[in-house]
């Protein structure tokens, strides 16, 4: 009889055509989706060609999303995108070009390209985001991505799994993201202690079951910065409703009742305050009550960590009928064109504009500090980004705080870090 396995182990076993796997095993497994972005696509394609292939394998789906160099800021970026378009056409990769694009992890979720029970790889460290859909989604470099495109498979070391069971209802102003920020504050992040390095983090419990897919994506996204190999939530009715019926055709993969975990964590979030990562490290975390009153100049709602439709709605609830503080600039970059269109259609963007916000294209620039949001010397920013390292958004003399969209919106109104509960 096969050993009891976690959902991550089961997916790896199934895609490797093995009856069972155990942590530490190295297996070759089928990859259903390989996705990259404009910035690295040529490197990925180069590796595919170096491996001797002339086309993407029939047994996988290769996708390029234009997000990092989008829209192109200079001739070099425009020419890069031209070359990517030409190469993708020849090799058989699908492009989500400007106008049909989004931040890559949001885009592939919306397009239902990540199927429960499968493996996907992406050339970006926030790849674990889409594990929220019940798949094993892992970040890799260009060589792995190019070889996976060429063959439809990739080597994987089977990780240990950690089970995080969450119970309780979120207090006003607290979101799924705050769970991970809190844990990161306690245990460290990938750049320091790397507490969950190599491990699969499995999230479950009544709170997770009650979460929308947007909330689950945000939860798994923030787990990325703890060094995880992947973050995963078992698929359920919410997952199937998000995607459409055809995902139901396969039996849902779930952890066995006696599966072994390297660690089990139980967390009751009934009393959890919004958490703020303070300069200059993602694990320098304080509850909002500790830092409220800190003046801010810039507020940003952007990135695959906090600019989904649900996040924009939350910000709009706070900003409706209010104006942002005269000292503050508010930038909003929806996580995808689809989010942008929906927020436009349902009046959310109008609320953000009326409040004094600048609505920007969907792009990664505001997270990378390359375009959309660049900070000058001494400026203080509160943002929904995942990382707040020194110099990330421009000046090394700027300060970046990160938090959930409600904190960002409330702080934009107050002109200082503020508890959103007072505005909701």
């Amino acid at each position, binding site marked *: 009889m096969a050993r009891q396995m976690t959902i991550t182990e089961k997916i790896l076993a199934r895609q490797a055509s093995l009856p069972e796997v155990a942590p530490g095993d*190295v*297996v070759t497994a089928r990859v259903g989706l390989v996705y990259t972005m404009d910035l690295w696509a*040529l490197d990925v394609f180069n590796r595919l060609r170096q491996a001797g292939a002339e086309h993407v394998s029939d047994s996988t789906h290769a996708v390029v999303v234009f997000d990092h160099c989008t829209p192109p800021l200079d001739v070099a970026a425009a020419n890069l995108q031209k070359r990517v378009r030409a190469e993708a056409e020849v090799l058989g990769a699908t492009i989500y070009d400007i106008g049909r694009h989004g931040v890559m992890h949001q885009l592939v979720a919306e397009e239902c390209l990540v199927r429960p029970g499968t493996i996907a790889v992406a050339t970006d460290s926030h*790849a674990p985001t889409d594990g929220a859909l019940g798949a094993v989604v892992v970040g890799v470099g*260009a060589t*792995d991505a190019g070889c996976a495109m060429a063959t439809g498979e990739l080597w994987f070391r089977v990780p240990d799994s950690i089970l995080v069971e969450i119970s309780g209802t979120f207090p006003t102003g607290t979101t799924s993201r705050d769970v991970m920020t809190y844990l990161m504050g306690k245990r460290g992040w*990938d750049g320091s202690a790397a507490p969950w390095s190599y491990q699969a983090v499995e999230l479950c419990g009544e709170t997770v079951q009650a979460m929308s897919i947007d909330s689950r994506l945000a939860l798994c996204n923030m787990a990325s910065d703890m060094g995880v190999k992947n973050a995963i939530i078992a698929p359920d009715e919410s997952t199937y409703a998000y995607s459409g019926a055809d995902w139901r055709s396969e039996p849902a993969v779930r952890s066995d009742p006696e599966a072994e975990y390297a660690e089990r964590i139980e967390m009751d979030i009934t009393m959890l305050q919004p958490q703020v990562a303070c300069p200059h490290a993602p694990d320098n975390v304080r509850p909002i009550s500790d830092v409220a009153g800190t003046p801010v100049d810039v507020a940003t709602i952007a990135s695959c960590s906090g600019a989904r439709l649900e996040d924009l709605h939350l910000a709009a609830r706070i900003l409706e009928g209010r104006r942002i503080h005269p000292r503050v600039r508010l930038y909003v970059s929806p996580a995808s064109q689809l989010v942008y269109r929906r927020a436009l259609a349902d009046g959310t963007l109008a609320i953000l504009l009326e409040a004094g916000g600048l609505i920007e294209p969907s792009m990664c620039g505001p997270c990378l500090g390359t375009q959309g949001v660049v900070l000058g010397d001494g400026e203080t920013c509160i943002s929904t980004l995942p990382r707040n390292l020194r110099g990330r958004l421009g000046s090394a003399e700027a300060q970046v705080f990160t938090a959930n969209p409600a904190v960002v919106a409330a702080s934009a109104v107050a002109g200082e870090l503020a508890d959103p509960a007072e505005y909701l």
Partner: protein
Amino acid sequence: MDFGIELPILRGRAWVRRGVIPFDAILPARYWKSGGRGGGPDDALLGAHAMEGIDPEFAREAAAGGIAFVVAGRNFGAGGKSIEHPVLALKAAGIRAVIADSCSRYLYRNAIDHGLPVLLSPGIAMCVSSGDELEVDVTQAVIRVVATGRRLTAAPIPLPLLRILECGGYVPYVRRSLEDRAATRSS
């Protein structure tokens, strides 16, 4: 232990740093920030900037043949970025293997994929000093400090990854397997 595989024994001098070395100390971001031009000749130039964020002398010494092994403490390559360039810089600088207490998973994958062995053992960085001549048996995961004869063991590299290293990296490994598949089909 007999794996049916035997990688060459590596020999050379160690460069040791015991703290956490972030990925952007291995190669500062400005050397790769402009993005993918498709790889190629630029990769070799990265060697001149290897470890620039932590030791400005590293690249020069390594180029002169003075450094074969990077020995690091915990979480080598910390900072969670999936890019390959730090590994390309180390390889171009002539590094033959990485030995560390532990290693970021991105750096580990990218290193194996480029034929750069990584041997891991908690506490190993405390057992080696900069300048030590080492003999490294990647297959058996044994490191010998030549001057004292002391043997240090690391976690064995799994056999599938030894095979990738034997081919010189994942691209040559995949290339060979695609050629084998094509040959089988046409025969």
